[in-house]
């Protein structure tokens, strides 16, 4: 009896196993027969899951137009949000299965290990002649003098502000740090949040700290040098900048509970005209045309330089600017040439830069001024003016310039500083400790 039962169980399991393997075979065969045809399949790994707006829309548009122009090419896009993207990226790296073309962050904390390990294919400089990339924009996509990726956008920090609120409360748009502190006090009195900021995301605080260091010193290199040389705690300028930041917190410069506010919360606070200013990067250029925001907001939104500090050496035109996301082609790809063609097609100045700018989707990494039509929004014009008048730019921000671990820890320390969990002196001491551990 039980022997019979055992036989039945075993045979059921065998059948199940057979079914599974047959399915596996069929799938294997399908992919095999597809590759014998002449279609070229390119796997594209992107960090832009939203394909209907902003950069994701632009990316998809260019991919679609490429497939239309090359009917034998089929591009399979896999788009994941940043965190799942990093997870999946690790899986691909660990199993040596890199997609043919993939998004990279042009920061040493992300891209350097990828280039070092030889996962990315070299892009010859004469392949991108006339593409309008400035050498400085390619710096973080290069290793040992060779280029391995192309940046998508120019990212730089500005202070967005609401003209309507400044007029209503008769406040002058701040050009110095003291004016900023005074403006903050006035807005506080009237129940308006002075500056909306996403303190929960931490990185913004680290960037703001660097902004203050630059405005204090006028020296873009200072913070990087101090960390490389591990002489942070004794540096008076770094200390002053940390105190400035705490000062801004003390006068109520940010919205209530800003340490717990995420990106959307800060953005919406500003967009609903409940905050007078918003410290954020150029990628928010689309705010002035966003159909989800009110007409009154869109009429009032404007942007300016981050204020200078009286007594500091920095100019208002010393800005924080870098090139974040970009693309690279896999070195081990079977369709490397086709993937490279696609990359060069997308990043051609008449595509990513021109279409992206004219549709108000991005601030491109290439020179975009020649694509101005005169129909730009106020923000587009202001941002162009701010960037083109820059007298010095930072490059990759300080927390991204070292190891991934440094980034995480340094950002957390910045959050602790603004939450007043540590004093400015302690903050610098901790950063120095961190530098000793993480920076060789």
């Amino acid at each position, binding site marked *: 009896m039980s022997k019979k039962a055992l036989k039945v169980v075993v045979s059921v399991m065998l059948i199940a196993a057979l079914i599974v393997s047959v399915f596996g075979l069929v799938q294997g065969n399908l992919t095999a027969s597809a590759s014998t045809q002449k279609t070229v399949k390119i796997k594209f790994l992107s960090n832009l899951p939203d394909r209907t707006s902003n950069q994701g829309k632009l990316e998809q548009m260019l991919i679609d137009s490429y497939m239309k122009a090359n009917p034998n090419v089929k591009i399979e896009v896999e*788009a994941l949000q940043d965190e*799942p993207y990093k*997870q999946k990226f690790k899986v691909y790296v660990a*199993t040596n299965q890199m997609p043919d073309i993939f998004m990279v962050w042009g920061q040493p904390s992300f891209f350097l290990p990828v280039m070092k390990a030889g996962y990315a294919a070299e892009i010859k400089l004469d392949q991108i002649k006339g593409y309008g990339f400035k050498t400085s924009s390619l710096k973080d996509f290069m290793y040992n003098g060779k280029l391995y990726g192309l940046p998508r956008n120019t990212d730089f920090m500005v202070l967005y502000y609401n003209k309507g609120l400044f007029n209503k409360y008769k406040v002058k748009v701040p050009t110095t740090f003291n004016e900023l502190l005074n403006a903050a006090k006035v807005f506080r009195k009237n129940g308006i949040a002075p500056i909306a900021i996403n303190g929960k995301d931490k990185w913004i605080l680290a960037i703001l700290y660097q902004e203050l260091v630059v405005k204090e010193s006028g020296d873009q290199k200072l913070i990087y040098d101090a960390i490389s040389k591990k002489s942070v705690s004794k540096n008076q300028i770094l200390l002053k900048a940390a105190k400035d930041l705490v000062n801004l917190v003390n006068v109520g410069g940010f919205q209530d509970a800003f340490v717990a506010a995420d990106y959307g919360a800060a953005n919406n606070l500003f967009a609903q005209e409940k905050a007078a200013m918003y410290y954020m990067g150029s990628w928010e250029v689309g705010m002035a045309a966003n159909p989800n925001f009110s007409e009154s907001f869109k009429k009032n939104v404007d942007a300016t330089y981050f204020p200078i500090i009286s007594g500091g050496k920095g100019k208002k035109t010393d800005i924080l600017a870098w090139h974040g996301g970009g693309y690279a082609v896999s070195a081990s790809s079977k369709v490397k040439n086709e993937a490279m063609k696609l990359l060069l097609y997308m990043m051609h100045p008449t595509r990513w830069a021109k279409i992206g700018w004219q549709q108000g989707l991005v601030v491109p990494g290439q020179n975009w001024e020649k694509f101005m039509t005169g129909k730009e929004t106020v923000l587009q014009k202001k941002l162009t003016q701010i960037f083109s008048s820059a007298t010095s730019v930072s490059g990759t921000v300080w927390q991204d310039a070292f190891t991934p671990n440094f980034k995480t820890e340094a950002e957390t320390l910045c959050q602790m500083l603004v939450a007043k969990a540590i004093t400015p002196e302690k903050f610098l001491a901790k950063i120095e400790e961190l530098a000793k551990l993480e920076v060789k």
Partner: protein
Amino acid sequence: MARESSFNKKSRAVLLVVLGLFSIGQLFPLVWLIDFSLCKSGDVYGANILKIPNPPQFINYYLAWRDGKIPQYFINSVIVNVTSVLLVVLFSLMMGYAFVRMEWKWSNKVLTYVLLGLMIPIHATLLPNFVIFRQLKMLDSYFALIIPYVAFSLPQAVFLMTGFIGSIPRALEESAIIDGCGIFRILFQIILPLSKPAIVTVTVTTFLNTWNEFIMAATYLTSDKFRTLPFSVYNFAGQYASNYAVQFAVMTIVALPSLIVYIALNEQVTKGVTLGAVKG
């Protein structure tokens, strides 16, 4: 007597208030979700906790449906989840019976081995499974999800089933054998109908776990063809761009099936959990 009943009344009132508050707390997020799924994206972080949508933005649902590729992902989710749940129920029932009622040499050790699965974290298995699936050419298929879903749900399901089957009186099976029942008839005609509460519990827990699962799906799937519903939510999220209202609409749609399953089977679940718990 009179004192006791007035005390009862009081305690009843207190209980009602507490439970009322509790249910408001539980239901509020849902109301909030549905409310803002009908507002404009910019309204989410306003001063009001709830906002009367004026006019209701039904377009959010349309966008969610279209851009979130909900119909396609939904079908995938249904295929993967229904198959997983059926397999888990079938396997756990058979295994539960084999462990509790059948006498064989390694019975206890194998049961312990299966239950060890409860302690394995999903993240530790992502990479090895990815490699195995790749070599079997099973990446990017329904099986790449069904197999790990079943494997991860089985330990808990077997745990519930063994507890439950143990509580069924042996006399029933004995009389069935006397009437000439074979082992499969005992299992499917006697044990199966009696185990309904346990089966429902297994169904619901497996369903809820796998319906919302994202990390395995994100790892084992590469193309759009087999993606499941949680991807819809992620299609609208980005670090720099978030259409909150449409995301809320997506989440409402995604949450509905689990809600319906839970509401429909709620009573059985409670029964199944408690009956499984008091194993003798």
